């Protein structure tokens, strides 16, 4: 049959027949529930690497949910940021803080059935501490050395006292890996076939597409509710909204707040929110005109944080006055920086500024990196203008922010978000405001002198009180502008019970049927 003898009717019949198998699966799909015992999560980032200890991925807070499904941290964390036994059932320092002691849980097994041993703990800690490993958090793990094993007890010598050492064991790069298996297969072999001791083991992995996990039958924490978990890597927020709305996934998060409000009202879907350990802030750099205390304080007092949260973020945010959010160890609710535009005007007037003769500087911000980041800065610039600050907005990528911050070359003001999953003040106020830190924009001698002694403070109560005092001082001097604590929106199918974590993680092992 030549082309010319094909009738229009025949062509249409053939095309329809060809299309039928493509869509028949789809029609069945929309009416079909997921395979029983399977939980599908539309996840917002890809998984670049299975090694939770070294490389760029290891310090990405967003990937930790996946790592914690496969690997065990040394110490586990409850939804309210408090710490609880993980692979370690006991841990602590001796009286003079020169030694650490840890007790390994009995009965924990790797995904290949072999037991988790104290040698695994020691090897994992030493590997994390190795300066040649490429572990960005090596500087924490290297503060303890000379580990010794006695039964299930591990002791080590403190090289340099790190108050948050055990807290880091629930945080970035704080995971136990299998020594024997890793040494047998090597780093590349481990990437291809990773094993952990966590509630789920890797069943299938398609890079940039999905990760399928199966429940680990020998898990010390008990069998999770779902036998199979699929992390679908859907990095575009619009696509994640489409995924949950189409029924392709059971849970998703990190979607625009407007979409969250729309989706939670839809039949078959439910939504929940929780403040997480991530804050929005504006770095103040110690350059003109920010060297003028009146300008800094005016910039602080002119911002109506509640209005920004209510109107831009649909109420999903918690205004804060320090870098310690509620729930953090050094949070002090008595420290308040009030919204007071008249006070801001009078402060600026003392320095010769007014709405007619404003002080001028640049504020840098990302656009689309965090929810409503650019719109927020636009709103703040508008508030500033009313009191006598004329700020010029410069948009840049997050990568450029890191580079400029590292070189101490940020603009006088720069928007950023700061995560602190362990809630310790050293990892928020400490790193963000301590001059020698490459991530600090305010290099003032005043904060260096105040924070410096707290790094090695062995008295915990004194250390926390010290940070509270530093936060109070910073608020009185206006050396940073904390804005609000982020709230994480989670959308899921009705019939699921999702446990929201203050550290922002979505842990499939804690998701059950309602």
């Amino acid at each position, binding site marked *: 049959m030549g082309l010319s003898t094909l009738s229009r009717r025949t062509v249409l019949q053939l095309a329809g027949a060809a299309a039928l198998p493509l869509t028949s699966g789809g029609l069945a799909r929309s009416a079909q529930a997921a395979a029983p015992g399977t939980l599908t999560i539309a996840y917002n980032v890809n998984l670049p690497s299975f090694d939770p200890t070294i490389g760029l991925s290891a310090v990405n807070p967003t990937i930790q949910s996946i790592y914690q499904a496969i690997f065990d941290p040394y110490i586990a964390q409850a939804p309210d940021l408090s710490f609880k036994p993980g692979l370690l059932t006991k841990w602590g320092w001796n009286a003079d803080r020169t030694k650490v002691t840890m007790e390994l849980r009995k009965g924990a097994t790797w995904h290949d059935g072999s037991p988790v041993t104290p040698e695994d703990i020691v090897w994992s800690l030493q590997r994390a501490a190795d300066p040649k490993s490429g572990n960005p958090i090596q500087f924490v793990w290297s503060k303890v050395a000379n580990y010794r094993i006695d039964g299930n007890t591990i002791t080590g010598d403190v090289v340099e006292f790190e108050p948050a050492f055990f807290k880091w064991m629930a945080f970035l790069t704080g995971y136990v890996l299998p020594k024997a298996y890793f040494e047998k297969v090597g780093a590349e072999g481990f990437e291809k076939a990773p094993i952990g001791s966590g509630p789920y083991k890797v069943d299938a992995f398609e890079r940039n597409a999905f990760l399928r996990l199966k429940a680990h039958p020998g898990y010390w924490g008990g069998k999770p509710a779902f036998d199979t978990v699929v992390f679908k890597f859907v990095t575009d927020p619009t696509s994640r909204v*489409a995924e949950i709305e189409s029924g392709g996934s059971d849970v998703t998060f990190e979607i625009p707040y407007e979409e969250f409000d729309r989706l939670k009202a839809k039949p078959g879907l439910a939504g929940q929110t929780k403040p997480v350990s991530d804050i929005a802030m504006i770095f103040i750099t110690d350059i003109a005109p920010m060297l003028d205390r009146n300008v800094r304080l005016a910039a602080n007092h002119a911002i109506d944080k509640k209005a920004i949260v209510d109107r831009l973020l649909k109420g999903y945010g918690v205004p804060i006055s320090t870098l310690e959010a509620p729930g953090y160890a050094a949070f002090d609710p008595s420290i308040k920086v009030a919204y007071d535009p008249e006070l801001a005007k009078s402060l600026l007037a003392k320095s010769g500024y007014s709405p007619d003769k404003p002080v001028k500087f640049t504020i840098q911000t990302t656009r689309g990196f965090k929810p409503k980041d650019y719109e927020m800065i636009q709103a703040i610039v508008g508030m500033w203008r009313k009191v006598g600050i004329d700020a010029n907005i410069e948009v840049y990528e997050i990568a450029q922010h890191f580079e400029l911050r590292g070189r101490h070359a940020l603009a006088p003001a720069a928007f950023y978000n700061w995560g602190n999953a362990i809630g310790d003040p050293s990892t928020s106020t400490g790193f963000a405001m301590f001059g020698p830190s490459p991530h600090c924009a305010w290099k003032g001698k005043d904060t260096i002198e105040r924070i410096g002694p707290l790094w090695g403070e062995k008295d915990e109560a004194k250390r926390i009180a010290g940070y509270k005092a530093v936060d109070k001082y910073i608020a009185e001097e206006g050396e940073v502008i904390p804005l609000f604590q982020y709230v994480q929106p989670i959308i899921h199918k009705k019939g699921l019970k999702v446990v929201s974590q203050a550290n922002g993680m979505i842990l499939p092992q804690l998701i059950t049927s309602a």
Partner: protein
Amino acid sequence: MRWGEIIRRLVLIPPTLFGVCIIVFILLRVVPGDPIAMMIPPGASPADIERLRAFYGLDQSIPQQFITWFGQALTGNFGRSISLHQNVFELVLARLPATLELSLLATLIAVALGVTVALTGVYVRGRRAEWAIDGGIGVFLAIPDFLWALILLLLFGVLIPLLPISGRIDPQLDVSFQTNFYLIESLATGRLDVAVALLQHMILPAVALALPFAALVARLLKASLAEAEDQDYAQIARARGFSRRAILLREVFPNALIPTVALGGVQITLLLGGTVLVERIFSYEGIGNMAIDAVINRDFPLIQGLILTFAVLFIALNLAVDLLVRLLDPRLRHG
């Protein structure tokens, strides 16, 4: 296109790629965004930063870094990805087949659709229907592929959930493949159920990529067909009583194809470039999607490897189109 010209084109490939390497290498190190700055933790000391920089070879001068990288690249070693900790060459090879299959499917859809619309458009020349077809072509040309991706995602993924909207294959399917050409392998091994499952995931991104290209093919081919139909040989055939349909398909179409392939074939590179955003929207795991992550992470070795891959593909495609034109046009074959 004479054989001498083909050889000349082949000889020019290495210096072209070398030029691409230099430009990309320098640009990556000049634009803001330091991968080390992105990965260092807040408490890192200057010594920690220097150690990380040395670990990834970024402490050397740019010319030295280039010499090191280029020397290794000549032996097929494109370095190790900073973010993925794996050999760049292996990473790209693993993901390239997905993009190639998607692009091939998109091209087939675009050509089939474009040819059908062009033939129909010429067949209804002078009538009102031609206006509708020309208008439709204009609209489809104006809407870029990533916007089509969003439209199709909404229409057939959410409003009328007919097709899956993410990934290359259903995560719940337990299948294994010998190669990374999943679709071709499943068709070749007779696993039609797997092929259908793969096509279900590919169809929306492929159509999104295909639509603007189909509109371009339709416009170019329709214009060529119209011009060719007005030629003497076609008029004479008509006068001799051959049907218009037969003349169009047997006489006019082969001649009109040549300029369409010549002009439109070069645009296939735009289709390939469109995979970056379309793959991202559909979470389809090809090199386009990988490229976006590589840029976000400032993963220099991976970015370089991917750009080199795209450059090789573009050069190969352009050469293939020129060879195809040579094959189709007897004047070039015997000239």
